Structure formats: C-alpha cells, structure tokens
C-alpha cells in the first residue's frame, strides 16, 4: 500500500486497488429487499444539512405556498430520477459508480472525479462541523458568527471549539468508522421525531399567541412571510422545486447511488428514495424552516442550527444538532479520505484523513459556506451530473444505435476525449451563464460585450443543471459517434476486436 509511485500506471493501479473488493457485480445472494432501502434513505436524508437548508429557504424569503408546492414537486422529481434513471442502471449492471465511470470515461478522468469529489466532501464535512459547533458554543456563551451581519470569520474561541470538534471527528473517522455508522443509524428515528416535534410545538406556540388565525394564515403571515432577510435574493416556487430536485443530483442524475442500488432486487426499489425525500427533504425542511421563521418573528437575529433547535426542542434539540452534525461529518470525512488517497499514494490512511480533516476544520470556520450551502450543493450537482448521463447512454442507448458500450475500456484507452469535452464543456458554459450575472470579475469582463440573446439569459444555478445534463448527453452521443467512426476504430470494431 505504501509503495512509491513510479509510473503513470501505478496511480491507476492504486485507484483500482482501493476499490478492488467491489470490482465484480454484486452476487444475487447479496441482494436486499425494500426494507433495507427504506431504512437507508430515511436515515441518510435526515441529517445535519436539514438544519441548514430549511432555514436557508426562509432567509431567502420564500412564501408558504411556494415553499410547500416547491418541495412537493421537487421531491417527486427527485424520487422519479432515482427510480427511473439510477436504479434501473444499477440493477442492470450491478457495479459501483467507480467501476462504471472507469469503463465509460477511463481511469484518468475517474481520478479527476475522485479528487473533485474529495474537495466537495471536505466542504460538506466542514459545514457539518459548523452545525455542531453552533450548538456546543452556546453553554460557553460564545456567540455564533453572523454572516448576514458581515462576520467573515468567527471569534477565536469559536474557532478553538471547531478545531477540537474537527480533531475528534477526524480521529473517529480513522479509528471507528463502522461504530459511528452504526450509531448514526440508532440516531435516525429519534432525530426525525425531534425535527417534527419541535416544528409542531412551535407552530402550536404561534397558534396560542394568535388564536383567531388558522394554521395556514399563521404559516403564510407569521412564518413564511415572503420577505428575504438581509441581502439575500428572493426565492420563488421554481427555486425551491429546483433545489429540492437537484440537491441530490450527484446521487441520482449523476448516478453515484448505483453503488447502493446495485444491491436492489428490482429496479422499482428506487422508489424507496421517497422515504428519504418526504421525511427529510419535505418534513424536516418544513420543520426547520418553521423553527427558523418563528425564531426570527420573535425578534431574535442570526438563526443558527444550534440556536433554533434549542428554541424549538430545548436541551434535546441542542443535543440533536451536535449529533446530526457529528454523524454526518464523520462518514463524509471518511469518504473524502478514501477519495484523496488516490493522489497521495505514499501516505498512510490516518495521514490522508487528517489532511482532509484540516481542510474540513478550515471550512467549518468560514460562515459563508453554510450561509451559501444551497449554492455549494448546486455546484456539486452541476459538476457531477453529466457523468450520470454518459453512464445511462452507454448502458441503454449505445447498443440500440449501433455504438459500442464501454468503448474506452474495451479499446484499452486511458482517456476518453468524448467524455472530457461533453463533461467540462457544458459545465463551463453553465458556469459562464450563471457567473456573468453573479461573479463580479465575470460581470466586469463581459459588461456590454455579449450579444443581447446571451446577456438576456438569466438563470439561477439550480435551473442550469437540467439543461446542462441534456446538452452533455447530446454532445457525448455526437463525440462518441465521431470517435467510434474514425477509420482505425471502425476497423477494430469491424474485426470484432471490441466485442
């Protein structure tokens, strides 16, 4: 494991070795029924992030009607994406995302995938450390950073707590990942009820204060007022629906959950994702949104996961936030370490995990990350989703239109140029369309220089994931056709060398 890397191939070999244990398709004896997937989704999607994302929607001034309908439509689309796209591919091939990608985009792009994935995982783990510290800091009387009020960094004492929490989480990720994973499963049913109970109790408190108003009136006039807080932009139905659909785009459109669904007996088990979406991303987001809005309506400022949970559920709520942050950060950091190990072949596992842990702690101390967690999650979806389109096309479409599936693997290529162009091209185009209105340097560079029809495209990043996915798919088919119809490759295919 600690041999020095002496050639380009050895990096690829090392990557293969990391995932060697799941190289073969899952055996039929190991398949699981509905119960496993329902429990898994219900547990995974009630996590620390839910304490951030529900309140973020409130901070962006979403109205009650837009919030509820947006969540309903967005979550239905997410479930359909898992059930109709991810699960059928997983059941047909029974391979992990790593081996799928290696066959489709080649080893070098798979390494790039691993590195970028590690970065985003460190950011998300840091965000969860931040969530836990918002609760731990309260008994010490240390104020949480207020990003809306202009805090760029937390106080020294706050960062000290984040450092201690980060070191503990990193140590646990090295020492006892399996036990933490088990503990997080124990926490799941209780955590769900903490969310719901605190939301119900606070709704009751508001109802008691205004007995003449119905629940819908309380929701629309006292909780979801439709007015953004601070300098936040206004969110509508489309923002909520888009975000609810695409916050897990990496897992469904991007196909990373084939790793889980390869254990499913039938593709229809993809519908088990509904339990995660409607308990976590519907129920828990509404509950945490209610907590945040009610907290603000009482004149408090700077709603943070720890403070709103204490407000709605007392001591148990504060503990729930610490546990939610911790149990989400831990597996996330573990996975980040696994992904980073690809490019740090001489490092021992504990060193890699601690290196990822340092990045996680730095991220935890940047309040802007959690204040823009919806953006971070949207960039994640935008970047990784096209890869899912390539896998779907290789598995389902290519055999029907006379193209060779898994051409990169069969032709023993280490780099797939059709994948690279179809992946990075639409991603950079999407970033440009979003950035020209939202990134200061791009605004400055392009001001008055763009044709009217391009300047006129005003799209939020969540609205770009769908079009980007479709454009990437079309380009991938086109480029794959060009690649496979070149003289050399056509000859190889005709001779049966790639069958």
């Amino acid at each position, binding site marked *: 494991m600690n041999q020095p890397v002496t050639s380009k191939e050895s990096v690829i070999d090392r990557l293969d070795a990391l995932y060697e244990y799941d190289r073969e398709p899952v055996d039929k*004896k*190991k*398949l*699981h*029924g509905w119960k*496993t997937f329902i429990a898994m989704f219900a547990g995974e999607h009630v996590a620390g992030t839910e304490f951030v994302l529900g309140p973020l929607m409130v901070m962006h001034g979403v109205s009650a009607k837009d919030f509820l309908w947006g969540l309903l439509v967005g979550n239905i689309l997410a479930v359909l994406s898992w059930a109709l796209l991810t699960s059928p591919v997983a059941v047909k091939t029974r391979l992990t995302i790593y081996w799928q990608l290696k066959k489709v985009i080649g080893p070098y792009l798979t390494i790039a995938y691993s590195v970028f994935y590690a970065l985003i995982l460190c950011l998300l783990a840091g965000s969860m450390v931040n969530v836990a510290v918002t609760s731990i800091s309260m008994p010490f009387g240390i104020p949480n950073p207020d990003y809306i009020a202009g805090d760029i960094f937390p106080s020294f004492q706050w960062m000290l707590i984040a450092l201690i929490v980060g070191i503990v989480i990193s140590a646990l990720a090295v020492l006892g990942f399996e036990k933490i*994973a*088990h*503990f997080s*499963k*124990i926490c799941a*049913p*209780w955590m769900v*009820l*903490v969310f*719901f*109970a*605190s*939301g*119900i*109790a606070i*709704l*009751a*408190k508001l*109802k*008691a204060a205004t007995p003449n108003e119905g629940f819908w009136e309380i929701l629309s006039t006292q909780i979801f007022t439709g007015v953004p807080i601070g300098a936040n932009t206004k969110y509508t139905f489309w923002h909520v629906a888009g975000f609810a659909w695409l916050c897990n785009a990496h897992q469904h459109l991007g196909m990373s959950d084939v790793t*889980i669904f390869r*254990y499913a007996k039938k593709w229809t088990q993809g519908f088990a994702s509904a339990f995660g979406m409607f308990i976590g991303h519907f129920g828990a987001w509404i509950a945490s949104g209610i907590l945040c809005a009610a907290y603000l309506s009482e004149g408090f400022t700077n709603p943070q996961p720890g403070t709103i949970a204490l407000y709605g*559920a*007392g*001591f*148990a*709520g504060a*503990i729930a936030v610490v546990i939610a942050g911790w149990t989400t950060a831990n597996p996330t950091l573990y996975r980040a370490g696994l992904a980073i190990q690809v490019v740090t072949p001489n490092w021992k596992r504990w060193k890699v995990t601690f290196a990822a842990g340092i990045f996680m702690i730095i991220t935890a101390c940047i309040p802007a990350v959690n204040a823009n967690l919806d953006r971070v999650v949207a960039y994640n979806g935008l970047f990784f989703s096209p890869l899912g389109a390539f896998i779907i096309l290789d598995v389902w479409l290519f055999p029907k239109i006379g193209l060779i599936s898994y051409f990169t693997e069969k032709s023993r290529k280490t780099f797939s140029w059709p994948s690279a162009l179809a992946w990075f091209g639409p991603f950079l185009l999407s970033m440009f369309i979003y950035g020209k209105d939202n990134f200061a340097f791009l605004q400055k560079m392009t001001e008055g220089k763009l044709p009217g029809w391009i300047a006129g495209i005003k799209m939020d990043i969540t609205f770009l994931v769908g079009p980007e996915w479709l454009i990437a798919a079309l380009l991938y088919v086109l480029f794959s056709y060009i690649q496979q119809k070149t003289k050399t490759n056509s000859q190889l295919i005709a001779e049966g060398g790639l069958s």
Partner: protein
Amino acid sequence: MVISYLGLACTLLPSILVLIGVFTLQNHFWLMSIGMVLWFSTSPFWMKSKSLDEVEE
C-alpha cells in the same frame, strides 16, 4: 425495546399535547430530554445495523 419506544413517544407526543393546549412548551422540553435519555440508553442493545454487503435473511 418497550422502553426505547417509550422514549420515542416522549419525544413526539408532548408536542401534540402542546398543539391541543394540554401541555406547556416547558413541559414539552423536559419530556423530550427524558425521551432522549430513554432512547439512547436502551436502543443500542437491540438495534442492529448491517452493511449492504451482508446477506439479507
């Protein structure tokens, strides 16, 4: 297992009692804390978790 479920009931039911006006918010906070202690002190003894790689019975 019964005590664990009692812990979950202590977590959720008080909020419904607050909603129908029988309970105060303060009592709801106390019972949620008791529910938490009951759940975490008993559930690890009977809740098993298995990885996907293990064969389903």
